[in-house]
């Protein structure tokens, strides 16, 4: 009997190939999308979870108050570590300070390799949960030795055991390899931090008071909490460590320390006014909703199409009953059939998802795979297959199987065949609400990206290459290197700066100037640059002048941006004297047009460009001649670089890439939502197609009669299509306020944002109508072209 049921189900599918493709394909697509989104969410939620002390690791953050706006900073100062250890030791098993990841160059024999890593204190292995391959965790912390990740060790030493071997770091320090550990997993926040691990003590050898003082925030501080200590307890305890130690006077910004636990780093790292207001978690929810919706739509669609189809099987039900089938047997048959089809769809979905994974991983920048062995997959399998299978089987199983056979066999009124048209219509409307909402969402995201792209940068990113000066060799040879480069006409100008112009994050505070309100707690971003910087990035001086070699006094000169002039309240900025917190008197010599040196989405920040009198700026900015070929210029650049700096590999970034980074996340979200919108529309079209064929079938006779009476194909097409256009317009009308509300919320996160134009809604609705017409016409045209005699005879 089972075999027989399956056979008939299979033959039904083969007989109606187009329908089967639409129906199973649509459901499979829905399953596949949900599966991928599920994997994405799973990956996000399990970030860092491999850490063996997941619950006990935290980072020490501080809320600082700048005149009413509370900012949350990660960076801390050097004395904090000892203060936490001595005063609050009972709360923590480990307190470990770490530098931000920095690139170092390692040399061993002929091999020279640059890699990102950190300098940390003794407890680092516990904080990072290091898994040692060679060496002993406890030996970490000796300033003369270094730990390497497996990948780095392998690229330096190849197959040989590196333990005890020595290498040269940044051409100056000789270090012994004391440990090799497994690479940090991709799903770890420490991944960038830990290409290599050196001892922080090494950096502190010969460090000046500035580096060691309470005012210079340049480190991260991680802790491993003692057992039975909660984040809240520890946070409350350490709140005022800085104030107590450094004194309020030096720390006007009222720093309040607290712990940010490892479990929140990935998804809850967006702070506003000192409190965590989420972060990536928003996208987890968003995608979760989209996934659930897509599955919901695809399932309902499937149920809808299946049941519309099952009307056709009323006759079969009658026959089976007449030849002896019980109702139960019919119920079982229909359930089995729908389960079989849903199973098919599910396996097809697994295949689709597997095929789409590379693309998916590329867009999402992830490394997820289908978790074949994970119970969640199979729970999802059981739940979705069971649910959809049962729901889609429900209607034919119970409704059809309760038919009295005479009803269908005597060919009496086919009243039942009408089915739930209202339900199907409601479904189509709902589908279009979702699809049009997604379409509008995508359009708004793209409009916003376009909006920020059109924002004036205030400088020229094109052809700007940045090369860090990582070793003394490079610093020493700077002038000669520059002069040699300028001999070639491939290079227009070369300048030094502390930060890349696209990312100027360092700031100083506690300046004094004429007219400053004594209570005003200032914080001014810093650009440490030399003479040629302005020329290199092509900034625009609005008032005064650029730095110049002609003025010896320029060693203490500064150039303010417009925002800084406003921030400091200068009527006439040129010539103003600003007293730096370290005592120097700085003179304003010019005002530069605001430049986007930070976020594209925020207003320009007050920035002071200071002349780099002590040559601390270690980034070379190289402007390529737009008239030369980039590859050619880069070849020349690296050749000249190598000639001067044989022991330091050249690393470079294009300013353009850093600029693109700024909206990479938005572009990714836009791409994903675009894909989802396309798929939602596709699935909705399947629903439309189902409804259209259903309606056309139901009205076959009417169409036949109308044709006999002289209706033309186009008149019939209009008549049949009108109904659907109405549904889609209604769906769009409901989607517009919904989408507009949601997208306005989204835009509100951006200080610099676009305005959603009305025409955008118009396009979305128009698009929906066009797609509908196209889809529906496939069916309606066919119905309208049918030979009327044929359809009338069937009655």
């Amino acid at each position, binding site marked *: 009997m089972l075999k027989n049921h399956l056979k008939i189900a299979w033959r039904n599918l083969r007989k109606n190939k187009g329908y089967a493709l639409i129906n199973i394909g649509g459901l499979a697509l829905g399953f596949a999308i949900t599966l991928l989104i599920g994997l994405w969410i799973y990956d996000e939620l399990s970030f860092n979870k491999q850490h063996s002390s997941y619950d006990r690791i935290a980072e020490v953050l501080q809320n600082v108050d700048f005149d009413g706006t509370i900012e949350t900073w990660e960076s801390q100062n050097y004395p904090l570590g000892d203060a936490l250890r001595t005063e609050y030791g009972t709360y923590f098993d480990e307190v470990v300070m770490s530098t931000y990841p920095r690139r170092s160059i390692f040399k061993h024999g002929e091999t020279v390799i640059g890699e990102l890593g950190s300098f940390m204190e003794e407890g680092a292995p516990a904080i990072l949960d290091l898994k040692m391959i060679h060496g002993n965790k406890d030996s970490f912390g000796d300033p003369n030795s270094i730990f390497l990740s497996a990948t780095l060790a392998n690229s330096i030493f190849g197959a040989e055991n590196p333990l005890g071997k020595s290498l040269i770091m940044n051409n100056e320090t000789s270090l012994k390899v004391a440990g090799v550990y497994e690479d940090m997993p991709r799903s770890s926040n420490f991944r960038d931090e830990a290409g290599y691990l050196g001892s922080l003590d090494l950096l502190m050898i010969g460090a000046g008071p500035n580096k060691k003082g309470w005012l210079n925030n340049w480190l991260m501080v991680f802790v491993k909490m003692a057992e039975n200590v909660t984040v809240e307890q520890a946070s409350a305890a350490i709140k005022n460590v800085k104030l107590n130690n450094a004194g309020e006077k030096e720390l006007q910004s009222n720093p309040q320390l607290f712990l940010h636990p490892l479990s929140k780093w990935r998804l809850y790292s967006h702070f506003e006014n000192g409190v965590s207001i989420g972060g990536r978690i928003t996208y987890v929810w968003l995608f979760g909703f989209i996934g659930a919706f897509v599955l919901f739509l695809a399932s309902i669609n499937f149920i809808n199409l299946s049941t519309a189809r099952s009307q056709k099987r009323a*006759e079969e039900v009658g026959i089976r009953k007449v*030849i002896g089938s019980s109702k139960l047997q019919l119920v079982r048959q229909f359930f089995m059939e729908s389960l079989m089809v849903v199973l098919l769809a599910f396996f097809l979905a697994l295949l689709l998802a597997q095929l789409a994974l590379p693309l998916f991983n590329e867009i999402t920048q992830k490394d997820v795979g289908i978790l074949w062995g994970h119970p969640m997959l199979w729970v999802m399998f059981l739940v979705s297959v069971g649910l959809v299978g049962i729901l889609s089987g429900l209607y034919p199983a119970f409704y059809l199987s309760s038919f009295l056979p*005479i009803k269908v066999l005597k060919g009496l009124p086919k009243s039942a065949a009408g089915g739930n048209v209202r339900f199907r219509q409601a479904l189509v409307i709902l589908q279009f609400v979702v699809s049009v909402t997604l379409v509008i969402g995508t359009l708004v995201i793209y409009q916003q990206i376009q909006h920020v792209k059109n924002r004036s940068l205030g400088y020229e990113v094109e052809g700007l290459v940045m090369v860090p000066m990582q070793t003394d060799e490079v610093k020493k040879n700077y002038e000669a290197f520059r002069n040699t480069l300028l001999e070639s006409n491939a290079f227009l100008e070369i300048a030094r700066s502390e930060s890349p112009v696209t990312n100027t994050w360092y700031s100083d505070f506690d300046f004094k100037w004429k007219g400053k309100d004594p209570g005003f707690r200032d914080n001014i971003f810093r650009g440490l640059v030399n003479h040629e910087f302005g020329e290199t990035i092509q900034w625009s001086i609005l008032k005064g002048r650029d730095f110049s070699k002609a003025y010896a006094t320029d060693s203490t000169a500064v150039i303010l941006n417009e925002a800084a002039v406003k921030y400091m309240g200068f009527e006439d900025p040129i010539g103003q004297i600003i007293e730096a917190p370290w005592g120097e008197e700085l003179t304003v010599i010019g005002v530069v047009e605001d430049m986007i040196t930070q976020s594209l989405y925020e207003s320009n920040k007050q920035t002071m460009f200071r002349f780099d009198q002590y040559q601390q700026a270690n980034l070379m900015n190289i402007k390529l001649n737009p008239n030369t070929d980039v590859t050619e210029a880069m070849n020349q650049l690296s050749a000249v670089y190598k000639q001067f700096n044989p022991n330091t590999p050249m690393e470079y970034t294009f300013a353009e890439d850093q600029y693109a980074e700024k909206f990479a996340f938005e572009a990714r979200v836009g791409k994903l939502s675009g894909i989802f919108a396309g798929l939602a529309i596709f699935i909705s079209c399947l629903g439309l197609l189902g409804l259209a064929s259903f309606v056309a079938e139901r009205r076959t006779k009417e169409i036949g009669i109308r044709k006999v009476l002289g209706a033309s194909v186009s008149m019939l097409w209009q008549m049949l299509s009108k109904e659907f256009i109405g549904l889609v317009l209604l769906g769009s009308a409901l989607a517009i306020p919904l989408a507009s509300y949601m997208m306005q919320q989204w835009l509100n996160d951006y200080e610099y944002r676009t305005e959603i134009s009305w025409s955008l809604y118009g396009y979305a609705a128009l698009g929906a109508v066009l797609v509908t017409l196209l889809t529906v016409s496939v069916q309606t045209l066919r119905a309208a072209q049918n030979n009327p005699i044929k359809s009338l005879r069937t009655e």
Partner: protein
Amino acid sequence: MLLQLNNIFKWVNSGGQRIFLLKDINLTVEEGEFISIMGPSGSGKSTLLYLLGMLDGFDEGEYHFLEEPVHTMKEKHRSNLYKEYIGFVFQSYHLLDELTVWENLEMPLLYKKIGSAERKAKVADMLDRFNIVAKKDLFPPQLSGGQQQLVGVARALISNPKLILADEPTGNLNSKQGEEIMELFKQLNSEGVTIIQVTHSEKNASYASRVINLLDGRMI
């Protein structure tokens, strides 16, 4: 006595009005009879036939089948009785188009939960008897009307019913094919199967030993 109808009434309510489909039907059928039901279109012939076949109910009266009261019987019991003793043949054949001839014949046996070996034997036997062995792997739409009706009759017969009910079995066939089916019925009848058929044709009706005439739901 195979079955007996006493004072059977059947009606439907439409627009507050009671429309009678069958009025005061009294009928006794002995085992081995061959009966034709005749009457104009809409006179209630099919209704009566389905009622006899227990596929349709009635509103008043009594129906005994093999001495058992059908009108008070539980659904399950009734369907068992039906499965055991009754076979149906339709004007438009009503075969399952997705199944082959073989599978169509096998279906009723599957519903009766008959073992595979016995099923095979019975189906083979039936194919042989109706001379359609060569068609066993074809699907109904690939057969002519006459051949389809042969399969229809074979399917009705396969579970050895005592009673065959046929609703205009030759209505869609040409006269030669119709004659073949009638000859077949005659032969089955001579083997002891009771047959009740609805027909419009005087000639086909004459194969029967008794003719019942219906007019507006009443036997005349």
